[in-house]
């Protein structure tokens, strides 16, 4: 009897020990979708691009063709005049579209916050460009900015002819918005401004709606006019949102790609006048198949954005009196 039982007993014991204990694994299984997706689409490209920025690699030749060249890619990028030209274009468009975004969005949000009726309709109308496909936007603006048949030239010339006094300040000829090297950057900047001004308005309006009404009432009793209330109450109270919104603009504008790419093509228009750094990086990788240099450009841009974001952070803290 014993001899029959003992092998069975000895075989169940280790089996029980090895049994899958689901409660121990459950937390890892639940967080695994994020970890797997992040590892594949977040961590791997990050690490791979950092690695590749120190190498020369032709993807067609496979992984075995990776050749380590230390800092050569960075040296090349930092001495490449096309990189600096693209960076100049990027900074120009970032400032020309970014600054007005905030200078318009803040007072506009303040105006909307006073509206009792129709606020959401107006806000929706201004927010619409943000959720519209950039391809659709760029196609419509290509048509509007067309030299011979565009609505903008037609309106400007009509105003020049019919508007007294200031009409003379407007051009009397058709402007080549998308071909003239002087006009390309302002045109792209305007499209970017138009697209994101609604988004920033929503951010600022949300911040303004959290300001307690009694602060304005106290300021009214203290003798503050509407303008002074805006200056002394609204602006300081939305400072954290300003920091957030300006940081987002900074990051997005320095990575600008879609609008100039679709409006002007992959070379950034005549004389590469609106070729941004992101476009240059794209061209370096996919036209010149120089992935190592493209990765180096992206990391240089990362450093520039990080430094500017830090500067922005310090600036806001100093302006508001660091707590």
């Amino acid at each position, binding site marked *: 009897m014993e001899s029959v039982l003992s092998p069975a007993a000895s075989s169940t014991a280790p089996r029980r020990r090895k049994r899958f204990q689901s409660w121990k694994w459950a937390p890892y299984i639940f967080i695994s979708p994020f970890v797997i997706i992040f590892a594949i689409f977040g961590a791997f490209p990050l690490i791979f691009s950092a690695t590749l920025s120190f190498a020369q690699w032709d993807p067609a030749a496979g992984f075995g063709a990776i050749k380590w060249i230390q800092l050569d890619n960075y040296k090349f990028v930092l001495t490449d005049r096309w990189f600096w030209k693209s960076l100049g274009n990027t900074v120009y468009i970032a400032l020309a579209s970014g600054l007005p975004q905030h200078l318009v969005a803040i007072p506009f949000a303040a105006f909307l916050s006073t509206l009792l009726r129709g606020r959401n309709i107006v806000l929706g109308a201004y927010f619409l460009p943000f959720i519209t496909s950039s391809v659709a936007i760029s196609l419509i603006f290509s048509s509007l900015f067309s030299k011979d048949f565009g609505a903008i030239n037609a309106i400007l010339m009509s105003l020049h002819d019919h508007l007294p006094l200031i009409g003379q300040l407007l051009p009397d000829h058709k402007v080549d918005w998308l071909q003239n090297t002087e006009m390309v950057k302002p045109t792209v900047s305007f499209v970017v401004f138009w697209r994101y001004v609604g988004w920033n308005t929503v951010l600022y309006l949300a911040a303004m709606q959290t300001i307690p009404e*009694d602060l304005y*009432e106290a300021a*009214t009793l203290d*003798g*503050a006019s509407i303008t002074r209330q805006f200056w*002394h109450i609204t602006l300081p109270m939305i400072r954290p949102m300003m920091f957030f919104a300006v940081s987002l603009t900074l990051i997005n504008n320095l990575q600008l790609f879609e609008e100039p790419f679709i409006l002007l093509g992959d070379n950034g228009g005549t004389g590469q006048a609106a070729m941004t750094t992101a476009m240059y990086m794209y061209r370096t990788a996919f036209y010149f198949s120089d992935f190592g240099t493209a990765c180096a450009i992206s990391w240089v841009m990362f450093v520039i954005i990080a430094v500017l974001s830090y500067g922005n952070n310090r600036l806001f803290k100093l302006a*508001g009196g660091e707590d």
Partner: protein
Amino acid sequence: MASLSLRNIKKAYGNNAPVIEGLNLEVGKGEFVVFVGPSGCGKSTLLRMIAGLEDITGGDLLIEGERANELHPSERGIAMVFQSYALYPHMTVGENMGFALRLSGMDKRAIKEAVGRAAEVLRITHLLDRKPAALSGGQRQRVAIGRAIVRQPKVFLFDEPLSNLDASLRVQMRIELARLHRELGTTMVYVTHDQVEAMTLGDRIAVFNAGKLEQVGPPIQLYREPRSTFVAGFLGSPKMNFLDVETAGAVAGNLQLKLGGNQSLDFGRTPVGTLPSQLTLGIRPEHVRVVPAAAGLQARVDMVENLGDTQLVHTALAGSEASFSIRMAPDAISPRVGDVVGIHIDSANALLFDRTGRALELA
């Protein structure tokens, strides 16, 4: 000359029924008047109308004799302390207090002196460089008052300023406010729904109900001689006991009252004028005694609360569902829950109201 005159004041929003109508009130110079009433009675709206934060639909508002209906809030010579304090979070305490003076164009040194003086009065000089976030509730309250003092207004307006404080701090700030009023001697209008604040702070109390002024007078007068069941019930805790009674005739100035459960009461006095057949008897808990069951109105004890300094006995009178409270001395032997006890009503301190709630004058 009154410091503040409200004459036939009306407030309506759009075409809706008025929330305040035909309100008249005179507040004397240096007087401390407390507006009390339940939520939604219009007391805060009235205060905001005085401040200029709400338009006045009809009537006249006079501040020191000058019509102020159309004056900008900052030109009315008033200062207001808000329930939430409404301190500017991005400014220091000193900047908060000096903001109005800064806007008026006063030079920096004069502002600093004025802020310093107010801070001394409120004992917050050591807090002047801090931001509101770094202050406790009581300190914020002081700063809010300081901001009002700095402007040297003709009238101070307080909108439930202590309601965000805990109980002990509220008592402390109440004493501080009374001291401040004594020292400054400025007219103060104070809105609260806390009857203890109203009773202790006000020279006079104005009781509001549904947009109308029910009664105005010194606290003790309102407590002892309320003109309506609303005022009688609103002031005092626990509230006045009300009993629906029927008159059973009056003999030689002694009114006989019939209560539920076939009980009767010898009231001892009679109302002046015609005698309604149905009345409401009002008696405060401190004017009721527990006696042996056979010696008074019969009641069943529902609950006994010992508050340390007093005992509250909640009972149900025979034939009545309404709760009837009795205040007893802390060391008295209290009845037990379920006991049937006798209740003696001190008629000399009792009040009679007609069924519309109006108090009857007693002979």
